[in-house]
């Protein structure tokens, strides 16, 4: 079955009308993950854009067609650990235990519980939609924010120009936890993403599966909504967001034969407007080094 057929046939588990921004990558990722995982799923969605967009419900109604809980910003993997172990204890291992969490809840304050759940190889699929910041609250920087980015807590000032640090590259860190499955994905590469969600769900029956997905954010990044997929695609093509996966056979990299430059990627994106030549070069070097490392690991 082609991924288009999968998506065409699968029921949408998310409310048709949710308050995610026009062109939101997170909404696309959430709908896609739940279309693949289906009705027999329990999901944890910590505070962040998706939870803020109403999918954990309002008043007495639900924003999804499946059971959902909004864990704390920093305990999604721990909460789902208890849930997952209870479902296994009850012999209902057919139920998918899934998290869809932003980068703040994943790479920052949620990292401790995430790392511990991964180390224990708890049975769940943890999907991080990485839009590089706290977008739900007006784009404050996170540890996955790209160097130089203009955010509300790393403004472009007369003395300091945007974020001063390179991003934390979480997916590789997660892959070193001895987990069942780890992959990066992008909504621009939908066939690849759907396949990885399927693999991740299968792996989650045996242990921890982690999926780190690039989540284009027109609002926070300041570009036109229709460019969302284009931005995600360029991030992949310039090796800022390489696509790879780790399974029992090791690391596998989607090689980019002719990468575009970081300079091409950042063009037209508002949060990068202020970047200096040096900053662009610095991001380029980080991307090249990361890609080279992944290539070696995938050999």
């Amino acid at each position, binding site marked *: 079955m082609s991924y288009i057929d999968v998506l065409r046939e699968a029921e949408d588990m998310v409310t048709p009308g949710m308050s995610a921004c026009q062109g939101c990558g997170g909404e696309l990722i959430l709908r896609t993950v739940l279309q693949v995982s289906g009705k027999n799923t329990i999901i944890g969605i910590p505070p962040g854009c998706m939870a803020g967009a109403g999918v954990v419900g309002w008043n007495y109604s639900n924003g999804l067609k499946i059971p959902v809980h909004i864990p704390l910003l920093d305990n999604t993997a721990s909460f789902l650990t*208890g849930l997952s172990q209870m479902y296994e204890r009850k012999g209902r291992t057919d139920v998918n235990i899934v998290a869809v969490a932003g980068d703040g809840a994943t790479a920052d304050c949620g990292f401790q519980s995430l790392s511990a759940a991964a180390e*224990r190889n708890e049975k769940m699929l943890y999907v991080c939609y990485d839009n590089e910041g706290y977008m739900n609250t007006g784009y404050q920087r996170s540890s996955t924010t790209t160097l130089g980015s203009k955010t509300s807590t790393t403004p472009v000032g007369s003395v300091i120009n945007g974020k001063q640090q390179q991003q934390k590259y979480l997916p590789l860190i997660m892959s070193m936890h001895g987990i069942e499955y780890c992959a990066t994905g992008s909504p621009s590469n939908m066939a690849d993403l759907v396949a990885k969600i399927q693999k991740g769900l299968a792996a989650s029956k045996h242990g921890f599966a982690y999926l780190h997905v690039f989540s284009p954010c027109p609002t926070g990044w300041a570009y036109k909504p229709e460019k969302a997929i284009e931005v995600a695609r360029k991030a992949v093509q310039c090796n800022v967001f390489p696509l790879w996966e780790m399974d029992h056979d090791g690391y596998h990299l989607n090689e980019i034969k002719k990468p575009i430059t970081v300079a091409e990627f950042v063009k037209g994106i508002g949060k990068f407007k202020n970047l200096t030549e040096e900053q662009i070069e610095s991001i380029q070097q980080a991307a090249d080094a990361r890609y080279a490392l992944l290539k070696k690991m995938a050999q």
Partner: protein
Amino acid sequence: MGKKVVLTGNYSASEAAALCRPDLIAAYPITPQSSVVEYLAGMVHNGKLDSNLVQVESEHSACSVVQGAIAGGGRVFTATSAQGLALMFEPYTRMSTLRFPMVMALATREMTSPETVWSGQQDAMCVRESGWIQCFCDSNQEIVDMIIQGYKLAENKKVLLPVNVCYDGFYSSHLTEGVDLPLQEEVDQFLPPVHINHCVLDPENPFALDPLTPGPLMLKYRKSHLDAMEAALDEIEKIDKEFGDQFGRYYGGAISEYKTEDADVVIVTIGGMTGTGMDAVDLAREEGIKAGLIKLRFTRPFPAKRIAKAMEGKKAFAVIDRSVSFGWSTGPMYMETRAALVDADEKFAHFSVIGGLGGADISLDMILSTIRKLNVVKEEPGQKDTQWYMVD
């Protein structure tokens, strides 16, 4: 009935928790609680206990993992102390406001700073507005019995609240004494398997657990929570009776009284100082002082009516806190006891006593000095200076 064993307070908590057949246990070691989780780990690893044991990386996760397991329909157990409780504060508060029933042992400990690992009840007092039921134990036997009763109370349909079973760090957690440990079949008879359905996540009955909720609805949830606390006061008494009828041990419910009937002066104690207090009452009576004791067994819900009734016709009282209320220059339970007694200043001579902080001893002599002080001021209603049990 039961079997006589010799246990520390922590091992008593572990044995009792195991008898309640928890589906899942998650706890992180911290002084002076560590041996609770060590003991349970030993039971699970030796096949004596069929529970999922999750070796978490922090108390925050301990509380979160058990929260997830309750959302999966399970009965759970955890234990902590002081800084660990502070770290788990975020999921801790959520536990009660989601109305998730469970039991957590708390080996009470002083909060830093100054740096300390020793006894004190400041940790429990810090979280008393977190919506949990709080009970304090005085003996290892009581730890066992209250953990078992705790599940019964927590899972009561009128209550549905988490229960903290508190006992003094070291003075109880590391105290070794004989305990009558109920048999498994006896506990099974008293405590049926957990059956909660108000909060269980299940694809067969999909709902949003904890949707975004606006203020007007929030008020309803909070009122319902307070109503449940109020209802718990009755259920505590009923469960105490039911437990006593089966096991032969009655504790008196939310408070217990010792020689208060004809007393002029009353000391109010919390937790592990109570036994010493009873000895002090006996010694004071030998001196001709009509002394009595009220043991505050539950601090949440606060048994205000029971205290008021117990204090009827008395002349003076002092509340001994192993913690402080920053801002009142007294102990916190003194403030609450006083609040429970209408016109306290007109009716009673009273003062707050603070002692036993950071592992300092609360001795017989200290409590005796309080009783003598009460006896001196008993005819002069009103608040007296706070007494500090200084140790030089």
